[in-house]
């Protein structure tokens, strides 16, 4: 790290003319860096540097680099062109209409250099502070603070009992018992429906033909078989069927005697 601090002091030193042979553009981080190094060589406060002299220094430096056939990156050349323009503008009689004026351009350049210099100095001072691991030291193996998670398992009595119920079910021998379901056969339904048709003369809903004491599965079975029975009787032309729309109640009544097929 000490080398770094040194670096900051050494780098800005502008090359003497004798050093020209050693000049290497790679030591600078861009044209502004080079300009700052050259400005420092004027050995005055950055606020008092002569921009014109600085421009001269830069242009000379670049010219020498090109003479030595060093590769000069484009951004250095762009800066050189801009500075050459600035130089001529500063030297020529002032044109009050020119905007921005060369003085303003020079001031801007000076402000930029001041800001870069300030940050470069700040970096050096920062790095020179008492730093952990170099100047001040911490404990190498602190005990550390720990968060211990206490795992708490959650389960309710219901979870426990229902789990046991499932285990029991799974382990019980599997016996398939086919339970006798209460059903109304198609024959019984046909029979019943034919009898009822004679009693009810007007349109009546299919459900009305079922005995009222049929409940649950028995009623479901009765509806199914009566429906099929109704279809059969309609096919035989003995009853008429009517339904307003799909899923609406199904109505039936006895067919007029005349239409009865022979």
């Amino acid at each position, binding site marked *: 790290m000490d080398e770094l601090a040194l670096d900051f002091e050494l780098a800005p030193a502008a090359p003497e003319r004798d050093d020209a042979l050693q000049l290497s553009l790679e030591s600078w981080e861009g044209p502004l860096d080079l300009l700052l190094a050259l400005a420092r060589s004027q050995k005055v406060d950055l606020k008092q540097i002569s921009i014109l002299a600085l421009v001269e220094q830069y242009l000379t430096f670049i010219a020498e680099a090109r003479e030595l056939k060093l590769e000069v990156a484009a951004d250095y050349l762009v800066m050189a062109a801009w500075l050459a323009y600035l130089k001529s503008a500063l030297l020529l009689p002032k044109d009050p209409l020119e905007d921005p004026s060369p003085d303003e351009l020079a001031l801007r350049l000076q402000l930029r250099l001041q800001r870069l210099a300030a940050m470069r100095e700040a970096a050096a001072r920062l790095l020179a502070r008492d730093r952990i691991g170099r100047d001040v030291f911490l404990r190498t193996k602190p005990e550390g603070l720990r968060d211990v998670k206490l795992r708490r398992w959650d389960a309710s009595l219901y979870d426990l009992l229902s789990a046991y119920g499932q285990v029991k079910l799974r382990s019980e021998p599997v016996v398939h018992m086919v339970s006798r379901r209460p059903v109304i056969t198609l024959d019984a339904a046909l029979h019943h429906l034919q009898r009822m048709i004679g009693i009810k003369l007007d349109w009546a809903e299919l459900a009305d033909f079922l005995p009222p004491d049929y409940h649950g599965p028995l009623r479901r079975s009765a*509806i199914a078989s009566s429906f099929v029975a109704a279809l059969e009787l309609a096919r035989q032309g003995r009853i008429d069927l009517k339904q307003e729309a799909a899923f609406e109640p199904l109505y039936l009544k006895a067919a007029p005697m005349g239409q009865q097929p022979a």
Partner: protein
Amino acid sequence: MIDDLERAIEAMLFASDAPLDPRQVAGRLGDEMTPGQVRTIIEAIAARHAGSGIELVERGGHWHFQTPADLAHMLRRERDDPRKLSRAAAEVLAIVAYHEPVSRAEIEAIRGVQTSKGTLDVLMEAEWIAPAGRREVPGRPLIYKTTDAFLQHFGLSSRKDLPGIDDLRAAGLLDPVDLAFDDAMGELDLVKDGEEA
């Protein structure tokens, strides 16, 4: 005012990555002092810290800083981490509760599936089951039973409070799934049936 030598030794012991003995400290100080002299200073430092939240202790002739043992509980913070018991663990726990004491093989026989060691570990960690000796059969397998913590957690005063098989059946907990479905369907409004026809 603490003199610079004492400060340096204190800092050295603080920042060292391993306990140091007086000879090592003297060496780092350029051997201008004898280990005996260094030791005297180290003891002074230790005395200065006595009764504080930091102590300098000697272990086999080497010294290092540490936090006092009586404050260890201040350095850890305990936090609850509640977790839902898995279905498999609930089954195993129920089997232990209804059939205790049982071995792992017996649990597997009842469940009809293999039981991972981890499931029993979870239940032991929860302190709901505990080993209860060995079954005197070939292989002498460990057998498990439930604990008082188990009764407490599930609000049971004794294992006898566990509902019997008949109770479970009455509560519908032993109903096969498809039968339960039929029952649920039967409760549907009958008017619906009529419209379906």
